[in-house]
């Protein structure tokens, strides 16, 4: 046996694993709480969350969570961490004064904008009752004329959403946009996010931070793929699809739309395309109906249907379609996200429509990358 080789018995291994488990639980109690809170409603969360919360409370006196929070703040200070939520939470936990933002965030200014210093919650539009669901969105939609921009200015378009924007759609828009002058695209998306679980990623807080000083003229938003789940709000559990869930989710969509429209932006809400799995498609259909109802009730927001572009004649899922005269795969193998070819079909009408609103100013288009987590 060589010097660096050492064999242990099962007993010794068990001792080592035991030490590891105990220490990992002590050091990571905060991380485990974060993990459990992000789980979908179900037996796993029901079992795990009380256990890790009890653990976290039990080891709180050791001050180890402070160690973790200080480490995250310090990493942010030296430009390592890039997660605004983690940084904000860590700063709250250690009561540190917010300092410079991460240097890795490209065009994000070094001093954080005022909105980062406190959680900004945009109140939903006051109403006496929620907008009733108006039914399924149309297979195809007509894009209305929107106000043009002043001469000499470019139209800034923010690409907002979850992986439905991040995968396929945004890259196609970014690749195709140089063909259209005077368009400036800004990336403001986060895979894995949504409106159902703000404790995982809170768009109300993150969106202003991600935008920084940018004020978009148009916001293209594709979101909701991760929202087909229940959630807990103020200790109350909302099962997906229940009337209470629908009402609560509609409020969140309204608040999100108000956030996106703040500053005068025109919001173009991109419908989530039909999904391959029947069960998942039914969830997404409900989310689309809620989104459509909220968008229809807004004076300015525009609905953009995709079912008629990437679905079959009935707006149902189809894997293949015709793109530029050839048969192509429209969806990725997960049956959820758009493929590049599918995204071309969706983007084909959007970009010319955005560009057609321009004045005659001839300014080369460019892309700005803003606070992409």
């Amino acid at each position: 046996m060589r010097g660096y080789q050492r064999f242990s018995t099962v007993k010794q291994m068990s001792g080592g694993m035991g030490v590891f488990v105990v220490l990992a639980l002590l050091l990571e109690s905060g991380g485990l709480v974060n993990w459990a809170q992000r789980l979908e409603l179900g037996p796993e969360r029901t079992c795990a969350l009380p256990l890790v919360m009890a653990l976290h409370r039990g080891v709180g006196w050791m001050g180890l969570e402070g160690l973790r929070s200080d480490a995250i703040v310090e990493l942010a200070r030296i430009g390592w961490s890039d997660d605004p939520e983690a940084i904000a939470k860590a700063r709250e936990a250690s009561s540190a004064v917010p300092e410079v933002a991460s240097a890795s965030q490209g065009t994000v200014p070094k001093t954080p904008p005022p909105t980062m210093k406190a959680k900004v919650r945009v109140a939903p539009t006051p109403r006496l009752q929620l907008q009733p669901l108006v039914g399924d969105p149309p297979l195809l939609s007509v894009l209305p004329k929107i106000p043009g921009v002043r001469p000499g200015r470019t139209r800034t378009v923010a690409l907002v959403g979850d992986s439905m924007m991040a995968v396929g759609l945004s890259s196609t828009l970014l690749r195709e946009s140089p063909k259209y002058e005077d368009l400036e695209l800004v990336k403001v998306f986060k895979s894995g996010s949504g409106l159902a679980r703000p404790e995982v990623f809170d768009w109300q807080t993150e969106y202003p931070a991600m935008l920084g000083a940018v004020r978009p003229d148009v916001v293209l938003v594709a979101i909701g793929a991760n929202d087909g789940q229940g959630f807990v709000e103020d200790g109350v559990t909302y099962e997906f699809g229940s009337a209470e869930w629908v009402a609560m989710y509609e409020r969140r969509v309204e608040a999100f739309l108000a956030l996106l429209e703040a500053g005068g932006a025109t919001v173009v809400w991109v419908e989530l395309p039909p999904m391959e799995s029947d069960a998942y498609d039914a969830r997404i259909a409900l989310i689309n109906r809620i989104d459509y109802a909220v968008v229809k009730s807004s004076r300015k927001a525009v609905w953009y249907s995709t079912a008629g572009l990437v679905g079959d004649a009935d707006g149902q899922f189809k894997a293949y379609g015709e793109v530029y005269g050839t048969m192509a795969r429209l969806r990725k193998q997960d049956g959820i996200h758009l493929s590049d070819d599918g995204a071309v079909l969706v983007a084909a009408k959007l970009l010319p429509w955005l560009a057609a609103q321009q004045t005659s100013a001839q300014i080369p288009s460019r892309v700005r990358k803003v606070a992409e987590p």
Partner: protein
Amino acid sequence: MLFPTVEYAVFFLAVLAIAWPLAKYVTGRKIFLLLASYVFYGLWSWRYVPLLILVSLFAAVMAQAIQRSGDTQRRRRVLVVGVAGCLLVLAYYKYTSFVLLSAMGLWGLVGRAPVWNLPAPFLPLGISFFVFHAISLLGDVYREKLREDLHLLDALLYVAFFPQLIAGPILRASKFIPQLMRPCDATKIRVNRAFLLILAGLFKKVIISNTLATRLVQPVFAAPADFHRGDVLLAIYGYAAEIYCDFSGYTDIATGCAMLLGYRFPRNFNAPYTATDPRDFWQRWHISLSTWLRDYLYIPLGGSRKGTASTYANLMITMLLGGLWHGASWTFVVWGGLQGVFLVGHRLWAGSSSAAVLRLRGRVWWPWASRVLLFHAVCLGWVFFRSPTFGVADTMLHQLGVSGSATLASRPVVVTLVIGIFGQYAPRMWRRGVEAMMARLPVGVNGLVLALGVFVIEVLGPTGVAPFIYFQF
């Protein structure tokens, strides 16, 4: 279930806690590990567990038929049927869409091709790996490399064993099944090495690979026209580091977990970016795949036994199919083709007796120059490997000619890039030294080191868990 998750940690600890008390019941332990492997796979999708069982059962029955037959012709026929059956399953799930779209594309060159809305099979996780395991079982039994009588349980567990099920390493039946047949030695577990492997794997995957993927590679490859030479070059280097750390990190964790369960996995990576020529590279990169391709494809095709032209053709075929194994897309085929060209080119170079070539090879700086050249040749291949379309690859290469600085060279990107690539040059003595130091400490202290390491990795890593790149294969 991904490795760097709480769910996997709980699952693995539970399996470990049950598997060792069962050690004296050899069959019972194997049944437990087999069921645990099916649960592991089922937690991704229960719908495809029957497929996994079917493929491994089919291969096991065929292998047993080969083993029991004394007739050479019959053995060969059963082998052909077995391999064809396995490949048909892989072809259906992985290549249906590719074949259909390619055929339509060819049709479109001569006329207007129809657009058919056919069902597109969903790609089961790890299918390329467990089908290759099934074929390895058939091959090793046919060549009588597996001398012991094959039992059904061993064959099923060999194919489905969870540490290697969804992203390798591709184990050889002749090496792993004998391990399954023997009782695990409860006094010879290399705990310190296993802990180090798991830590190293987590560091490579969570810190290096995830950081480079999210902050550098994804933004550039998503829209390469927005970036210039500095960023594009950095992204290409970044992908080289990302894919190495992602895949070798996964393999390290798999090997460490298997070690804790009492099994040995072969080494799958050996500092590939220190290679001096393409052949050397393929003896260091994804070793389990390259040796699989050599033994089950290249050699049966004739290898280097039938003359120079045949050798070159066999190399090209092997690498083209190797590229196709990685993904059902022409960009992967081009990547494989490039690897074949590099290997053929190297053979020509190595066989050259030209005075100029000999002088160059004799220079003291030549090994380092060849490392740099080879690394850039490999990076050229990675451009096609990573690009979703030829258009993206073309734009990436075109943007290398557009001058501009590296705007994405932030501190985390540079640090992880340097570690990811140049870390491979760390002398083996350093790794042995760390292992020796751990070996001198009590095992409990090893556990402390593991816990602290996981804590540091969790704090340093980006949020969220990005899937392993090789999961898509």
